[in-house]
């Protein structure tokens, strides 16, 4: 079987997992969430195989163009959720996260994204490619989870304000806390991969650790937004709606750094 078969299989498994999770969401049957989790985990394994095959086939890290890095981001998001679910025993955000994962996988499989493996341009021939991209994207995957739980928080909070009690044990307060935990895991990773490894690699490849290139500036902006989240929360005691809003903006900034900059702003960082 080839890489694209495994990729497709993982895609199908994720869609199936999403179906189970959503059915859990509306029926509240614990069993369905458990099946959803197993299916998602199987999807993750199959996806891992696809990434390994891709690496073997191309002879380089599996994130050198948009197709590859979208696929990797989807993989990292599932990985991040598995960690959060195992740690905090929450199941309800999974369905929504699966929607993001499915969107990423669909975008990766769209005909707009060239899928053939191409040899590495000289600038990307470095082990920093592995370190810089993988750690950054795993950090962003945790931001994606915080994004989901923050939106769920806003919905749950609005409901609770109208006097309706939460249907499950996943109260607004718990969602708020999971957003914070996810950001607390993702922020150091994003700092390490995106900023520190990025600077080291830029210094090695371009001769300057910081060039105020649009991609660099946008990752700094993303970093500032999450720094704002952490300071308003830890020092000023903000919680709830304001925190959720900052977490949502932060993830959108990360998304713009990842996609938008490539298509809208020209710069040095013209790979993916």
């Amino acid at each position, binding site marked *: 079987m080839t890489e694209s078969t495994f990729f497709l299989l993982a895609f199908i498994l994720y869609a199936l997992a999403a179906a189970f999770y959503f059915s859990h969401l509306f029926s509240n049957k614990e069993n369905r969430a458990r099946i959803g989790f197993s299916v998602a985990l199987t999807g993750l394994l199959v996806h891992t195989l696809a990434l390994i095959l891709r690496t073997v086939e191309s002879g380089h890290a599996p994130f050198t163009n948009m197709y590859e890095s979208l696929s990797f981001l989807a993989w990292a998001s599932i990985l991040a959720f598995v960690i959060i679910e195992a740690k905090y025993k929450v199941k309800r955000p999974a369905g929504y996260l699966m929607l993001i994962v499915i969107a990423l996988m669909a975008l990766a499989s769209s005909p707009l994204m060239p899928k053939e493996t191409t*040899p590495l*341009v000289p600038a990307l021939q470095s082990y*920093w490619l592995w370190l810089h991209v993988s750690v950054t994207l795993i950090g962003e995957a945790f931001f994606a989870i915080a994004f989901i739980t923050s939106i769920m928080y806003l919905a749950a909070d609005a409901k609770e304000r109208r006097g309706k009690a939460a249907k499950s044990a996943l109260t607004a307060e718990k969602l708020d806390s999971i957003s914070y935990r996810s950001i607390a*895991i993702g922020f150091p990773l994003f700092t390490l991969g995106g900023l520190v490894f990025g600077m080291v690699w830029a210094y090695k490849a371009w001769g300057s*650790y910081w060039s105020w290139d649009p991609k660099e500036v946008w990752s700094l902006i993303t970093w500032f937004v999450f720094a*704002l989240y952490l300071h308003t929360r830890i*020092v000023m005691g903000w919680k709830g709606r304001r925190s959720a809003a900052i977490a949502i903006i932060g993830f959108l900034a990360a998304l713009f750094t990842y996609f938008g900059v490539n298509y809208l702003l020209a710069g040095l960082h013209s790979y993916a």
Partner: protein
Amino acid sequence: MKALLNFFTSVRVAITLLIILICASIVGTLIPQGRSTQEYLVRYGQLGALLERLQFTRLYQSFWFVGLLALFAVNIIVCTLERLFPKFRRTFQTKLETEPKNILALKIKDKFKVGLSAAETREMVKKELRRRRYRLREVRTDNRSCLTARKRVLGWFGSDVVHLGLLVILAGGIASGLGSFRQDLTFTEGRTLSVPGADFTVRLDQFVTEYYPNGSVKDWKSLLTVTEAGKPLFQKTVEVNSPLNHRGYVFYQSGYGSDWDHPSLEVWVKKKPDPSYLKKAWLKIGEKTALNGESLVLNAVRFIPDFVLDEKNQPASRSLEPNNPAAFIEGWIGTEKVFSGWIFARFPDFSRLHSGAKEADITLELKDVRAPSYSVIHVAKDPGVSLIWVGCVLLMVGLGLAFYWPPRELKIILEDSQGKTEVTAGGISVKAREAFQTEFESIINSLRIRK
């Protein structure tokens, strides 16, 4: 002074500065940076001049942006120091909790009785906590033992280490901004260049471009020799992602090209009356080349890689690519110029050599043109770099401490009550409440077994 200090210790100011920095940075990515006045005029019209005056066109180096960063740095210093001393006090001069009701006000807490004497219970609690790598402090009153157990206290200082790291990075940025030296050195093979300000020279021994089977570039490799005081010191191949480092100067492979000012031209000489006549020669610009066994000397006066006639009908080059190579050749016998004219590699029929007003009976064909490739090496000396790496390490150590090394604190009071011992326990772990709760319950369970 006091008011100023208060201003800077305020977290609101930090938040406001962060928001302004975010907005300013966004603006800087929307306006292209560092372009010409002309371009801004075309792009923004009248507004262009205003943007330039307000330094929006080189925003990240502007006085106001650097000023904002400086304010931010002062704010970080003041806020960090202000919180650091109370934190030290809390860590090293613990006031032990002696009131059970204060412990019961904590979020994580428990109260139960153990069927052991106070002394036995105390030893058991201590053993259990030491096993879990807690550090203990203890005071005893007549019927109470008050314990405080902590681990991972370094986590409290994570944010301070992060802030220190950021300040070091900013300092590195200042050092880079003020003391950096950068220059592009353009080498052809065999050429030696001196590095401005440095007492060594660098020679390019060899430059190769490697290709993948599909024709795209795989790598550029420049073999450089560093020479100091006339003696070759060492040799290294510089590639993208693999620079050469010597005495604080770093040499990067940054560009390449073909040097069409110094081409080699292969010319075939034919005679119209004699179809079997053919002589071949390689010519260089400005060098007279004698034709084998002939008195004729050829001189390539000028070469144009992409020949075109400009508005004034003068020969010019449209690009630096050899799309339409042309050479102006003179033929000499002794001190007499016997012919001259342009010859074209792509259009041999256009070649016309004139001897005075007549056409010469000799034809020249430009068969091949080659240019030596040159390598562009970016040389940089950046005094801020080591500070940046130190700052990055501090930043990451600090973040690791702050988010992955959350401190845990347990407060336990043991009270003697008729041969049994009443245990009141509570704990705080702001950043890892769930994990701490689990550990707390497991500690309590291990004590309760002896009930």
